[in-house]
C-alpha cells in the first residue's frame, strides 16, 4: 500500500467518523429530549396536582410527550453544545504540535545544542526527516518523565513536532531510538495525527453534555444553600436534579463509548506504525529492543503529566493505566507488538535500571555490526522503485543515504543549518544566482536590508554553498527550517522580505530558486501566523485542467530549448492525466504568479489525483531522457509543496 492510498483510506475513515459522530449526536439529542420532556411533564403534573388539590377537575392538564417547541429547543441546544465543544477542542489542538508538546511539559531542544544526549536525539530525527523528505520537526524533551516514551503531534508535516521523554533519550541506544523515531514519523506521514485530533474533538463535544449536567447539579446545590426552598419550587428543583444526573450519565456514557472507539482505532494505527518503523529502518531489533526495554523497566512507558490522558494515543507506548485495561488501552500489549515483529521471541523482558550508560554502548556496537548488510540489500531493492511510488515511504537505503549526506556536509554548512543565526545566511547563500550580474544585485539587496553580520556571513558561505552538491540543497533546507522556526516574528518578517527580494532579483524563470522560496514559505508560515490550510476538495482531475496545463507548460519550457522538444515534453506529461482539454500555454502566460496560483489549486486535489499530477510532472521532466539533479530536485520541491514528502532520489532510481 503506498502513501497516496494510505491518505485516501485515512480520508475515508475520517468521513465515516463524521457520519458516526452525526448519528451519535442524533442519539444524544433524542435521549436529552426524552429526559427534558420527562422532567417537564412530571413538573407540570406535580404543579397541577398541588394547584388543583381539593378541587374536582384535573382534566385541564395534558400529559403529552411530544412538544414540537421543546424538541426544537433541545435539539438545537444539543447540537450547538456538542459542536461548540468539538470545535473548541479541535481549534486548540490545531495550534500545532507545539501547543500539545508544551502542555505535556516539554522543553524545546535547541537545534544547536551541544549536550551529547540531546545531540543524539536531534541527529536521529534529522536523519529520518531527510530520508523521508520532510522538514526537520522541532524536538521536545519531556524532562520530568522518567518512563520510556515518545510522541508525534501536529496537524500537518509542517507543524509536526516530535517529543521524547528523558527516559527514552537516556536509556535507548541509537538504533532503538531510531526505531522509535521511525514509528513516530510513520504517524506524521500517514496523517494519523489529523485523525486523532478529530477523534479527541468529537469526544470532547460529547463530554460537554456531561459537564453541563454536572454544572446543573452544582447550580442547584449552591442555589439551595442561600435560601430555604419552598414547597412550590420543590418539583422544579427535583426535576433539575434529575435532568442534571441524566445529562451526566448520557455525557459520560457517550464519552466512554467514544474512548472505546478511539482506543481501538489507535491500537490499529500502532501496529501499522510499528510495521512502518521496521520498513523505514529495516532494523527490527531497533524497535523491538525499545519495546523490550519498556517491558523490563521499572517506570515502563508511564507519563505523569496531567495532560497525558488526552494525548495518550499519540505516544509510542501506553502512557497511562486504565481501569478497564485492554479495552480502553490505546496501545496493544507490549508482548503482542514485539511478537508481531519478532515471532520467535522468548517473552523475556531484560531487567533495566535507570541510567546505565555502559550497557547502551555495548548494545550499539553490536547492532551496528548487524546493520551493514541490511542497508546494502535495501539499496538494490530501492533502485527498482520509482520516486513517485516512494513518496511518504523512506527505506533503510534512504536513512543510510541521509546520515552519509549529513556527515559529508562541510562543517560550516552543518553548523550554520543548526542555529537560527547562520541558517538565514545559508538560505540567502542558496538563493544567490549563478549569474555574476544578478548576484551583484542580490548582494546589494542584502547589504541594504539584512544585518551587516548576516551579509558578511552570507559572503563567507557563498563559495562553500556554490560548491555544494546540488543533491544536498533540499536536505540542507530541511535542516535549516528547524532552526529558522526559532526566529522571533519580527526577525522572520525581515527574513521573509529578504528572501522575496533575492528571488525577485533574477527576472528570468529560475524554477529551482523559486521552488526553494516556496518550500521555505510553505513550512515556516504556519509557525508565525494563521494560514489557510489546503483542504482536499478536488476528487477529479477534470476541473483541474487549467492549473495542470500551467504547471506542465512551465516544466516543459524550463527543461527544453527547442519548440518541438517543448511540445513533445508537454505531450508526454499530459498523457497520464487523460484529459482532453490540457494544452500547452504560451510562454507569456507562464509567469511565476500563474504557477503559484496553479500549485495552490493543485494542493487541494485528492491524494490519488496528486499522484497522477506528480506522475505527469515526472514524465514531462524525463521527456528528453536526461534527468539532471536539478530537475529531480525540482520534482521533489513540487511534491513537497503539494504535501507529498518525497524521499531523496538514490542513484539509478527512476522518476516514474
Amino acid at each position, binding site marked *: 500500500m503506498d502513501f497516496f492510498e494510505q491518505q485516501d483510506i485515512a480520508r475515508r475513515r475520517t468521513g465515516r467518523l463524521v457520519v458516526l459522530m452525526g448519528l451519535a449526536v442524533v442519539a444524544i439529542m433524542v435521549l436529552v429530549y426524552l429526559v427534558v420532556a420527562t422532567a417537564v411533564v412530571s413538573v407540570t403534573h406535580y404543579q397541577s396536582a398541588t394547584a388543583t388539590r381539593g378541587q374536582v377537575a384535573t382534566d385541564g392538564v395534558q400529559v403529552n410527550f411530544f412538544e414540537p417547541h421543546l424538541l426544537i429547543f433541545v435539539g438545537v441546544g444539543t447540537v450547538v453544545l456538542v459542536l461548540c465543544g468539538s470545535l473548541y477542542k479541535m481549534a486548540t489542538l490545531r495550534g500545532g504540535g507545539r501547543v500539545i508538546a508544551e*502542555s505535556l511539559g516539554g522543553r524545546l531542544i535547541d537545534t544547536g545544542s551541544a549536550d551529547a544526549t540531546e545531540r543524539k536525539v536531534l541527529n536521529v530525527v534529522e536523519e529520518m526527516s531527510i530520508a523521508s523528505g520532510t522538514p526537520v520537526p522541532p524536538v521536545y524533551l519531556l524532562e520530568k518523565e522518567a518512563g520510556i516514551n515518545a510522541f508525534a503531534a501536529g496537524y500537518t508535516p509542517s507543524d509536526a513536532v516530535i517529543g521524547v521523554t528523558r527516559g527514552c533519550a537516556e536509556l535507548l541506544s541509537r538504533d532503538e531510538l531510531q526505531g522509535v523515531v521511525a514509528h513516530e514519523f510513520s504517524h506524521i506521514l500517514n496523517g494519523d495525527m489529523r485523525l486523532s485530533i478529530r477523534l479527541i474533538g468529537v469526544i470532547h463535544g460529547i463530554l460537554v453534555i456531561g459537564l453541563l449536567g454536572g*454544572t446543573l447539579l452544582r447550580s442547584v446545590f449552591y442555589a439551595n444553600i442561600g435560601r430555604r426552598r419552598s414547597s412550590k419550587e420543590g418539583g422544579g428543583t427535583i426535576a433539575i436534579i434529575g435532568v442534571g444526573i441524566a445529562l451526566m450519565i448520557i455525557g459520560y456514557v457517550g464519552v466512554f463509548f467514544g474512548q472505546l472507539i478511539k482506543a481501538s482505532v489507535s491500537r490499529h494505527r500502532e501496529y501499522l506504525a510499528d510495521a512502518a518503523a521496521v520498513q523505514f529502518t529495516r532494523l527490527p531489533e531497533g524497535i523491538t529492543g525499545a519495546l523490550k526495554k519498556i517491558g523490563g523497566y521499572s517506570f515502563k512507558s508511564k507519563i505523569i503529566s496531567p495532560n497525558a490522558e488526552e494525548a495518550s494515543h499519540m505516544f509510542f507506548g501506553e502512557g497511562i493505566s486504565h481501569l478497564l485495561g485492554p479495552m480502553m488501552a490505546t496501545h496493544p500489549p507490549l508482548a503482542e507488538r514485539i511478537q508481531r515483529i519478532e515471532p520467535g521471541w522468548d517473552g523475556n523482558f531484560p531487567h533495566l535500571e535507570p541510567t546505565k550508560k555502559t550497557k547502551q554502548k555495548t548494545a550499539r556496537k553490536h547492532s551496528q555490526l548487524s546493520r551493514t548488510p541490511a542497508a546494502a540489500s535495501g539499496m538494490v531493492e530501492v533502485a527498482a522503485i520509482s520516486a513517485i511510488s516512494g513518496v511518504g515511504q523512506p527505506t533503510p537505503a534512504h536513512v543510510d543515504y541521509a546520515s552519509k549526506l549529513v556527515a559529508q556536509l562541510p562543517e560550516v554548512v552543518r553548523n550554520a543549518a543548526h*542555529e*537560527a543565526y547562520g541558517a538565514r545566511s545559508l538560505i540567502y547563500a542558496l538563493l544567490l544566482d549563478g549569474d555574476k550580474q544578478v548576484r551583484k544585485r542580490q548582494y546589494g539587496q542584502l547589504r541594504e536590508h539584512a544585518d551587516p*553580520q548576516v551579509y558578511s556571513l552570507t559572503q563567507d558561505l557563498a563559495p562553500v554553498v556554490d560548491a555544494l552538491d546540488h543533491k544536498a540543497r533540499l536536505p540542507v533546507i530541511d535542516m535549516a527550517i528547524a532552526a529558522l522556526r*526559532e526566529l522571533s516574528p519580527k526577525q522572520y518578517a525581515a527574513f521573509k522580505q529578504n528572501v522575496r527580494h533575492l528571488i525577485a532579483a533574477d527576472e528570468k524563470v529560475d524554477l529551482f530558486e523559486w521552488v526553494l522560496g516556496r518550500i521555505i514559505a510553505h513550512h515556516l508560515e504556519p509557525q508565525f501566523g494563521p494560514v489557510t490550510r489546503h483542504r482536499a476538495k478536488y476528487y477529479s482531475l477534470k476541473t483541474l485542467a487549467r492549473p495542470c496545463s500551467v504547471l506542465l507548460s512551465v516544466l516543459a519550457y524550463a527543461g527544453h530549448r527547442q519548440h518541438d522538444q517543448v511540445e513533445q515534453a508537454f505531450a508526454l506529461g499530459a498523457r497520464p492525466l487523460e484529459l482532453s482539454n490540457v494544452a500547452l500555454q504560451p510562454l507569456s502566460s507562464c509567469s511565476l504568479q500563474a504557477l503559484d496560483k496553479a500549485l495552490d489549486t493543485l494542493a487541494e486535489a485528492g491524494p490519488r489525483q496528486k499522484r497522477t499530477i506528480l506522475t505527469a510532472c515526472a514524465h514531462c521532466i524525463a521527456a528528453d531522457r536526461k534527468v539532471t539533479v536539478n530537475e529531480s530536485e525540482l520534482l521533489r520541491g513540487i511534491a513537497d509543496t503539494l504535501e507529498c514528502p518525497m524521499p531523496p532520489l538514490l542513484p539509478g532510481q527512476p522518476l516514474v
Partner: protein
Amino acid sequence: MDGLISVIVVCGIVLILVIIVVRMYNRLVQYRNRFKNAFAQIDVQLKRRYDLIPNLVETAKSYMSHERETLEAVIQARNQAQQSEQAAAANPDDANAIKQLIGAEGVLSGAMGKMFALMENYPDLKANQNMMQLSEELTSTENKVAFARQAFNDSVTAYNTYRESFPSNILSGMFNFKESQLFEIEDADQREAPKVSFS
C-alpha cells in the same frame, strides 16, 4: 419551563466564561513557554563563548605575561558569568536571575574589552594564527548572542504585553504570572560587543 430555560442559559454563559478563562490561561502559559525556549538559543551561544574564553586567555598568557592581573580578571568574570548563566538557564522566567546574568555579562564584556585594548601593544600576539582564529570565533559567537537576545526579547515583550493587557491581567495576577526581564546590555558604552580588531 421558564425556570429550566433560564438555568440552561445561565449554564451556557458559565460554560462560555470558563472556556474563555481556560483559553486565556493557556495563552499565558504558551507565551511563557515561548520565551523560556527562546532562552535556550542564548544559552547555547553563551556556553560556547565561555568555552572559548579560557583558550583565548591561555594563548594570550605566553605573550602578555606582564598583564597577569587583566587576564585573571577576565577568567574570574567568565566564571562569575557562567554561574549566573546556569542559574538563569534553570529559570529563564526569574527576573532576578536574568538581571544577575546581565550584570555578570557586563563585567565580563568590560574585562574582555580591557584585554583586547592591551593586546594592541603585542603585535606578535595579534599575528598569532591561533589567536586570530579564536578571536574570529568569539566575534561570531557574540553576534549570535546578540541575535538570539533579540529573539528572546521579542518573545518576552509579547508575554509581558499580553500579561498586562485587559482582561488577561486579572488572570496573571491570580495565577502569579510574574513580569519577565528583558535581556539588555545595561550600559550604553558596553552595548557594543568587545572590539576585536587586527588592523
